[in-house]
């Protein structure tokens, strides 16, 4: 709710390892869980059997070289991969202990529970207001106009965008700057009150200042949401994530507290990657 910067994330250029304080949050309730998840594109296997628990209200970062399957795995978590014809998912993924790939599972409702923010900001070619109101309307979250107005305002406030756009809610969302667009997309996702927010490299199309804002936002959102993000930027993972998972060639090599991954990795490949030996 509060748009003022918390002291911890005020500086965007926190050095590796300062994620320490974040790990102190008590997080033990499993929100989502993956068991032996395998993904195939046609005959090519992209992910080879991943086991991973995601805890409630944590920020979990996926890092790894390009093509290691981290985005693919992320998109399995709300079944966005269903939109790709040749993609096939095996194994079991649960949300609050319910299988999300169960045949009777309503994928549309799942995506309302597990929202996603994409790499490139993709506001709809509608007004700022309509961009936010789209999800709540879809799911009938507001009975009256006033309720919808409230949802729009609180979502924009959460995304730290309210003060910048409150006077031009009727203008097209595509007219905002890149960083504002991305925060608009986050607000749009927040507006349907999901439990989990997936972020697929949310800052890779943004400049450093916009990136800092989005990172601060992620930190604030983690109070109320479980956040899973893919990032190419290891500093970013170090800055915002409670835990970090390292993917390599379709395997989940190592997952641990961010501090542990960046200071004392157990696997040689993780060590090589974070020290810049490859990737």
């Amino acid at each position, binding site marked *: 709710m509060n748009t003022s910067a918390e002291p911890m994330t005020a500086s965007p250029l926190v050095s590796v390892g300062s994620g320490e304080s974040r790990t102190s949050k008590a997080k033990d309730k499993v929100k989502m869980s993956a068991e032996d998840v395998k993904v195939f594109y046609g005959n090519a296997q992209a992910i080879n059997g991943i086991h991973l628990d995601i805890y409630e209200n944590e920020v979990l970062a996926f890092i790894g070289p390009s093509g290691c399957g981290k985005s693919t795995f992320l998109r399995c978590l*709300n079944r*966005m991969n269903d*939109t790709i014809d040749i993609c096939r998912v095996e194994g079991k993924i649960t949300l609050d202990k319910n299988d999300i790939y169960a045949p009777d599972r309503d994928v*549309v*409702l*799942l*995506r*309302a529970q597990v*929202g*996603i923010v*994409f790499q*490139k900001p*993709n*506001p*709809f*070619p*509608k007004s700022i207001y309509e961009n936010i109101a*789209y*999800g709540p309307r*879809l*799911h009938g979250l507001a009975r009256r106009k006033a309720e919808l107005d409230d949802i729009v305002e609180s979502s924009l406030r959460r995304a730290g965008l309210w003060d910048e756009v409150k006077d031009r809610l009727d203008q097209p969302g*595509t007219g905002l700057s890149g960083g504002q667009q991305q925060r608009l*997309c986050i607000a*749009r*996702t927040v507006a*349907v009150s999901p439990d989990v927010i997936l972020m697929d490299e949310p800052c890779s199309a943004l400049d450093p200042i916009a990136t800092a804002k989005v990172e601060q936002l992620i930190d604030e959102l983690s109070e109320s949401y479980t956040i899973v993000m893919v990032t190419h930027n290891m500093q970013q993972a170090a800055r915002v994530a409670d835990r970090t998972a390292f993917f390599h060639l379709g395997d989940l090599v190592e997952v641990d507290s961010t501090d542990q991954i960046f200071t004392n990795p157990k696997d040689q490949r993780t060590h090589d990657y974070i020290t810049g030996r490859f990737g």
Partner: protein
Amino acid sequence: MSNLALIATLLLIMAMAYHLGLTRSRAVAAEQDVRMHSRPGYYGALVALWCGLPAFGLFLLWSFLAPQLIEMLVTQQLPTELVASMSDRELTTMLRRISAVAEGRNVAGGATPEELLAANHMARLQTFELYSLVAVMAVMAVGGLVYARRHISPQWRARNHVERVITWALAASSAVAVFTTVGIVLSMLGEALKFFSFISPAEFFLGTTWNPRFSTSGADAQGEFGLLPLLWGTMMVSIIALLVAIPVGLMTAIYMAEYAPPWLRNVAKPIIEVLAGIPTIVYGFFALIVIGPFLSNLGDMIGINIRTTSALTAGLVMGIMIIPFVSSLSDDIITQVPKSLRDGALGLGATKSETIRQVVLPAALPGIVGAFLLAASRAIGETMIVVLAAGNNPVLHGNPFEAVSTITVTIVNQLTGDMDFASPQSLVAFALGLTLFVITLGLNVIALIVVRKYRQQYE
């Protein structure tokens, strides 16, 4: 034939000039032991252009002016009292006969002594004209070649010059299209103005009766030239056509772009596009022989009187004809909507059809409206189907089951058979054509404005 030989020779000389320029530039480079500004090919090309272009320009100008000059000279040489006794049209006919005789062909009724004399004179003039043309062209070609070849030096920026010639050539080509359009519009405008000297514009644009009579019944037996019945007929048929084509075409496009599996898309899309390739005359007799009687029988069954040839028959078939316009244009536009937008909606928990209705179609709307307007102007200008199937009944009425007539049909009617371009009966075709042109132009302009105003930047 001699012109063709002339141009062929010129091309041959240009090829030689190219070679000369090429070798010369190499020689200069070797002599002065420097790097030339451009590669040898550019010097060759520039020498060839210097050799060919002025000569060709002269050739065009000459071919345009010389025949007129010769005709003038021949006319002057004819006995003055003979010329004075003839009307303009008779003089033109006579000049045509003379030039035929000059080319050694026979003319109807044999040539008169005056014509023979004049033909002799003309033939001599033509021979002289040809020789002088060849001579002047040769001088210009060789002069240009020599001048350009001498000019070759390391500092001469042949590459940039060639670039400029290319720019001009491209601009000239586009000018051809532009001037043709302007020319057509102007000539239509001129003839239409002539028509409006017979019939006042108010009478034409606001008249509710169309009864032009025949031009042979004399100028005083002028008919009534009211545009409104024709305009209304055109609108009625086009609206029926769009009512058929827009829903079917748009839904086809959505299915093909969003739902159809690739194999079906690959098979079905070309088949739909074949619809656009069927000649309209085939649609016309299809309407006349199949659809018309079918509708008529259907009407009998449910107790409505539907004519075999009616606005409904023509509109229905025309609608089928323009389905592929709507569907394939809309399909392209829907496919262009970026996947990220779809993902955004799906990621918020929208179903596929919600995504399409609420995000994809609004994003694609400007383009789709453009497609509709293009289809509309196609429907308004369509001729063959309505000639056969609309029934040619230029009466103002609102019943789609009755026969109507359209602007295009009327143009066909007014321009078939005996024509006299001094009578309003024929000239009205130009006024109608101009009206049609303005309508379609208006639609296209609106389409452009719509597309521009609502165009979304996806990047």
